[in-house]
């Protein structure tokens, strides 16, 4: 696929560089193109159905407390999996506790990064890098939009 004559070369990649005296830490975050792998591992919760007395038709109840809790957990796991998957673009990055097929371990990603000596702000930068690569950084999109419109000159009448 080409856009304005330029061939589009694969998913977006963001590079996060954290300075260190003994050699900078370079994390590469690549956009996750689909969530098929995630969907294979984690099932999306479905709301319970309610049947009232005297009625025969069951209706979904998305306000159910257990369902809402399950959805919160599901979305948290989905987000963490996206970060984990994005960071797979980093060469030679080996996790000790986080495993690709273990949803519980995805939630420990921040703990492992912190245990490796990264400050909270540095972990935050990695997460921002991953969300930016995945098109979820609204600030960056606004900046790009402003850059585009500032380069477009209005037509003279």
């Amino acid at each position: 696929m080409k856009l304005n004559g330029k061939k589009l070369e694969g998913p977006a990649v963001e590079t996060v560089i954290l300075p260190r005296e003994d050699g900078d830490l370079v994390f590469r975050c690549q956009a996750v193109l689909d969530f098929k792998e995630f969907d294979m591992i984690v099932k999306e919760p479905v709301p319970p159905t309610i049947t009232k007395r005297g009625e025969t038709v069951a209706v979904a109840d998305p306000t159910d407390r257990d369902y809402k809790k399950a959805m919160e957990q599901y979305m948290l796991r989905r987000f963490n999996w996206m970060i984990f998957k994005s960071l797979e673009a980093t060469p030679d990055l080996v996790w000790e506790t986080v495993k690709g097929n273990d949803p519980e371990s995805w939630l420990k990603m921040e703990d492992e990064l912190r245990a490796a000596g990264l400050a909270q702000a540095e972990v935050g930068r990695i997460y921002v890098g991953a969300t930016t690569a995945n098109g979820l950084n609204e600030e960056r999109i606004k900046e790009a939009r402003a850059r585009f419109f500032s380069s477009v000159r209005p037509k003279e009448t």
Partner: protein
Amino acid sequence: MKLIPCASLLAMAQFDLKNAMIRLVDGTPSTPNKLDIKVGDGTVTFDETVVREYVLDRGLLSTVRNGDQAPMDVRLDLMWEFLKAHTTGATSITPEDALKRRNGAAAWVSSDSDSCAPFALDIEIWYDPQCSTDMIEQIILPDFRYESLAHDAKGGTIQCSGKCNATEATITRSAQT
């Protein structure tokens, strides 16, 4: 010395279930299938029986031993307001479906680890005292199998009795969240 078997009724509990919910739970690990029965009115009783053997020493009471275990008797007699099914792939499940593992509950897994034994499920009673300072009480009646069942879907009534393959209920209390 002489052994005298004696069946004694250890405990019997009866609840006003207007503030309670009965939950039928299958044995699927981590994400079990559940059917919530919101009770409008009725009672649940469960009877725990312990057999004691009183041992006589030359005609006088001497010591006591536990006899054979006895299953817990459970009876549900209630009218429900609504049924809430936490299960995938089925739009409507009745208590009868859950107890008999049929229709929408056909894929339910027995709570009994013995796969050759008849289908069983756990009954959970969640009692909410409707007061934020009081604790929620949860009573679990494990491995229940019905022995008689009358269910009127139109009237929303269930009359069911059976036994649990357990000697006693598990009762826990937790703060409201």
